[in-house]
């Protein structure tokens, strides 16, 4: 066996002596402290025993015991365990420091070892060995630990006579002498120096009980006296210099001298019921920021609405036997109600199907046309005469031109996976009516992005440096620019859309991706006819766009190019905040398979909207994808909301009511209180700083830190004991309680962007004045002595594991939803649909019917061939066809996940496969 050790390492004595005692041959191999000896260890620990079979033992005590055991000399006694543990965990931390000092500077404080050696001394009373009647690993280990100290400071042990005699008794034994000789190379105590100075120190026990919560808020608890004084001044006198909340009168318009902030959230597509991922990605994130802007007294306007044009709506209308407008009306209301339930406080929530949309979109279009930023080109498209519509790629099927697979889709062949154009298909057929479409050329208009690229680049360089752009937004935009922009088609042969106001194109409409972002100004125009003060005013207005990452290029490249080309002083995006994807439990949201929580179902769970808001914001996918987990929701509710936030506020207010009649008493601040004020101020400032940059998830944690600090302050002062004391104690209890009541008030303000309903409840319980709803750098005392609060009541309910289990099962896809709008991948909602996006119910129902018919037909064909005993190759061919059809049928009826077809219309890769 090999012992890997540096020269003169006193811990190696433990191994060498043990080997010597048992007569086991131990080879010493010299290694350096910087050599990686044990592959998985990040800190080097020496000596290490190489057992030879790939295993290493890096604990000196364990090596010692192992070698004794190999020689049949290990004692299986709990006392040996205890001594070894004492040596490693109690003796070494102190001894290590002592030795480092001793061998380093030559000076060391022997008193530091006093209690340890006293303990050792008392237990060695009348004993020759630490355990039992013979040498054990305990003796070897403790002896070896003390050896370098004793060898350098002969005056160390005499004060501890029992220790001394035990020590000397062992020193005389041959094994011990042999050990010393091997490790020091006969060169005496000095040879330990290099190793001792290189050895890492065993850490001391952690002084305070650090729970998981402390780990999280490991803010340095030291505050400077300047901070304390500053906090005290702000607390006492801040109210006079803190502004009161600004009045907001609609219609809100930019004002001179104010910070005018225009906030948009990506327009949800009207046809899809939003799921939690859509909600956190867009409207909820923007809502937090919008509410924060109001708390900062910025002049902000929050605009959003449903995006209503496009193929999907048209198709759904046909299926449901309604007009597209009726479909939009129906679904607009659904969206509107869901967001209302989630307390999303839009300043205006509109829709894209308005007169203003048509006017503004056509105006921009014509200006682009006048300035030569449009190109004409003909495009070949498949027209189904029977249905009288141009077929989008996903409505066409045929024979693959490359491999002859008979069921290739309009944009990609399932068999050979090559991308194709629908017009290249042999024997194409319309998926809806099965008729053969004809190829018609159609002229379309393209936005000349290459011509606008340089101007966009100048703009982008400026705003991405000056504004807040999330990393993903910058990456995507940079790569689009780097790859070189290509012209993009902005017209379509459809009926439901904004009509193109140009001769030769008047039967066409704008492609939804061109037209949808124009919804932002048009919805504003529906809010106020002075919309241009927001939208044609880049000098005075800052524009924030909130969205999920799939929408980035449309907001950072295409829409800005449209506006730049229109040359009308449009306000263009300054700050682009894009989230990553929210996953659901172990996978993705899917309406068709009933997996995941969709907007209209959240209410039915009985869990209040503020809890949903809190959790979604807590796990907001900012720099990376995140997951919605029921178990985690329960945990965060019960720990952070109930036990931390709710507990703090409720116990404080209840205590104030019970002991002080609900009236805030006089508060005489002591140093400890000022320290608390300073710490709270730190958290408040971090919160403010983070929310200014839309780091919504991180800012939330600071609110929780503050309530934690409040809880700790109460625990430390124990006002329930103080109130039973004399006047001085009672007064102290009053200060603590009053202070915490004010902290509750601060928390209620900070909570407004996240949990508005709860915040209102807290403020009612506090009877808080409206003026407290501002966020500044300072923590100000608003609830002054004499202020009477309202009635305290618990704020949150515990979420029961049984309930959560039930809900998790309910949303895990056991039931099939037959009116689903196809599999939605984790993609949060786009501001406009992908034209060739997920299959709509109409296609599905027809599809299933058609395929069922085909399967039946093909089944008969096969049966007939078999009964006629036809050629095997012929039968095989038809059987293959039958199996393929059956597969398709299963796919269309939602039993096997289908790869959603062409969002590759944009040439983008779809995220991940199905699980």
């Amino acid at each position, binding site marked *: 066996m090999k012992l890997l050790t540096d020269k003169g390492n006193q811990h190696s004595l433990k191994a060498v002596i043990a080997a010597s005692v048992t007569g086991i041959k131990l080879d010493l191999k010299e290694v350096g402290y910087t050599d990686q000896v044990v*592959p*998985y*260890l*990040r*800190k080097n620990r020496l000596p290490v025993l190489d*057992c030879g079979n790939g*295993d290493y*033992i*890096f*604990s000196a*005590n*364990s*090596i010692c*015991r*192992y070698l004794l*055991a*190999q020689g049949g000399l*290990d004692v299986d006694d*709990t006392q040996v*365990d*205890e001594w*070894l*543990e*004492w040596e*490693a*965990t*109690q003796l*070494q931390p102190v001894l290590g420091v002592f030795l480092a000092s001793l061998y380093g500077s030559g000076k060391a404080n022997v008193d530091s070892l006093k209690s340890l050696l006293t303990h050792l001394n008392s237990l060695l009373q009348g004993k020759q060995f630490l355990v039992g009647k013979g040498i054990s690993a305990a003796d070897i280990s403790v002896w070896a630990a003390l050896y370098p100290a004793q060898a350098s400071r002969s005056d160390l042990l005499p004060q501890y006579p029992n220790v001394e005699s035990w020590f000397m008794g062992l020193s005389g034994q041959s094994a011990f002498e042999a050990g010393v000789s091997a490790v020091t190379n006969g060169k005496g105590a000095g040879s330990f120096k290099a190793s001792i100075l290189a050895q890492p120190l*065993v*850490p*001391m*026990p*952690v*002084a305070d*009980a*650090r*729970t*998981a919560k402390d*780990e*999280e808020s*490991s803010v340095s608890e030291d505050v400077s006296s300047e901070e304390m004084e500053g906090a005290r001044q702000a607390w006492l006198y801040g109210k006079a210099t803190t502004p009161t909340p600004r009045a907001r009168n609609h219609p809100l318009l930019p004002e001179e001298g104010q910070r005018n902030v225009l906030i948009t959230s990506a327009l949800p597509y009207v046809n899809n019921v939003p799921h939690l991922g859509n909600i956190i990605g867009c409207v909820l994130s923007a809502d937090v920021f919008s509410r924060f802007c109001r708390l900062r007294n910025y002049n902000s306007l929050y605009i959003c609405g449903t995006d209503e044009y496009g193929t999907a709506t048209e198709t759904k209308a046909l299926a449901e036997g309604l007009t597209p407008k009726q479909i939009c009306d129906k679904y607009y209301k659904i969206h509107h109600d869901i967001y209302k339930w989630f307390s999303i406080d839009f300043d205006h929530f509109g829709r894209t199907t308005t007169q203003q949309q048509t006017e503004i979109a056509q105006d921009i279009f014509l200006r682009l046309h006048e300035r030569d930023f449009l190109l004409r080109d003909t495009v070949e498209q498949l027209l189904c005469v029977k249905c009288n519509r141009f077929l989008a790629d996903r409505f066409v099927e045929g024979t693959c031109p490359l491999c002859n697979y008979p069921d290739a889709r309009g944009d990609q062949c399932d068999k050979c996976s090559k991308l194709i154009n629908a017009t290249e298909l042999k024997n194409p057929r319309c998926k809806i009516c099965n008729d053969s479409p004809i190829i018609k050329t159609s002229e379309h208009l393209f936005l000349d992005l290459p011509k606008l690229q340089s101007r966009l680049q100048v703009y982008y360089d400026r705003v991405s440096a000056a504004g807040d752009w999330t990393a993903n937004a910058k990456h995507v935009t940079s790569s689009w620019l780097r790859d070189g922009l290509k012209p993009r088609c902005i017209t379509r042969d459809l009926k439901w859309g904004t009509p193109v106001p140009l001769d030769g194109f008047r039967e066409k409409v704008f492609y939804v991706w061109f037209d949808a972002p124009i919804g932002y100004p048009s919805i504003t125009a529906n809010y106020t006819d002075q919309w241009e003060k927001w939208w044609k005013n880049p000098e005075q207005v800052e524009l924030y766009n909130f969205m999920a990452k799939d929408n980035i290029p449309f907001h950072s490249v295409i829409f800005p190019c449209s506006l730049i080309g229109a040359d009308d002083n449009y306000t263009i995006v300054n700050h682009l905040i894009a989230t990553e994807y929210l*996953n659901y439990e*172990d*996978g993705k949201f899917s309406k068709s398979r009933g997996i995941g929580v969709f907007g209209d179902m959240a209410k039915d769970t009985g869990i209040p909207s503020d809890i949903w808001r809190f959790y979604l914001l807590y796990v907001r996918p900012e720099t*990376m*994808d*995140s*997951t919605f*987990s029921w*178990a*985690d929701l329960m*945990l965060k509710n019960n720990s952070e909301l109930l036990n931390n936030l709710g507990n703090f506020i409720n116990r404080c207010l209840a205590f104030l009511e019970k002991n002080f009649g609900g009236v805030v008493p006089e508060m005489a601040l002591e140093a400890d209180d000022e320290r608390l004020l300073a710490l709270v101020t730190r958290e408040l400032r971090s919160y403010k700083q983070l929310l200014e940059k839309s780091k919504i998830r991180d800012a939330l944690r600071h609110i929780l830190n503050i309530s934690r600090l409040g809880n700790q302050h109460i625990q430390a002062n124990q006002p329930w004991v103080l109130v039973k004391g004399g006047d001085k104690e009672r007064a102290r209890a009053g200060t603590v309680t009053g202070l915490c009541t004010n902290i509750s008030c601060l928390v209620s303000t900070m909570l407004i962007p996240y949990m508005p309903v709860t915040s209102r409840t807290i403020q009612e319980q506090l009877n808080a004045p409206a003026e407290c709803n501002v966020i500044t750098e300072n923590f100000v005392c608003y609830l002054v002595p004499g202020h009477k609060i309202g009635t305290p009541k618990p704020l949150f309910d515990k979420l029961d594991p049984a309930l959560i289990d039930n809900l998790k099962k309910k949303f895990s896809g056991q039931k099939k939803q037959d009116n689903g709008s196809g599999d939605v991948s984790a993609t949060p909602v786009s501001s406009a649909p992908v034209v060739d996006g997920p299959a709509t119910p109409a296609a599905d129902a027809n599809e299933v019917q058609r395929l069922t018919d085909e399967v039946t037909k093909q089944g008969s064909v096969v049966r007939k061939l078999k009964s006629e005993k036809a050629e095997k190759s012929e039968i095989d061919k038809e059987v293959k066809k039958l199996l393929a059809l059956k597969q398709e049928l299963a796919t269309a009826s939602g039993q096997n996940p289908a790869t959603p077809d062409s969002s590759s219309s944009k040439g983008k890769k779809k995220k991940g496969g199905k*699980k």
Partner: protein
Amino acid sequence: MADIKQDLKALARFLDVKGVKVNVNSETKVPVLTLNGMTVTGLSSVANYLAKTAGRRDLIGGNDAAERAAVSQWLEYRVTEIDRCHSEKDVSTVLKELNSYLETRTFFLGERVTLPDLLIMYGVRSAVSLLTFQEKEKFMHLSRWCDNVQSIEGVLQKQQTPVFFVKNPLYAGVQS
């Protein structure tokens, strides 16, 4: 990082040893066990003692000297490394080491659950539960091991919620 008293009581319950009293010195963090008139001092000593009392020598390496050495080494690691993390950086180092070690092992001693699996899992649980999903994926082997151990019947007491792990990789190129 961990609650020593709770961990030892959980261990006692797992081993079905009754009548256990544990006190922890708040300064030195040393636990003392009292059971049937016997006192044992120190986390790893107590753990060993409980295993022996419950007749579960298989958890402490049986008669195999190499296994017993490994058990004692890792229990020592729990006390000197895991329980003595003073900063986030220390925690991170510990998690990285454990993750590396567990890359090629199902449990600490290979294929069988032993005391180190229990005590180290108790020890790192709270730190692991605070990891983001991406970090859990980075420490893939640690996460796998942690999930395995916490799923063993009787390991987690009723009031302890298991740490949540997503079983499907969400991130590309994250594992170290």
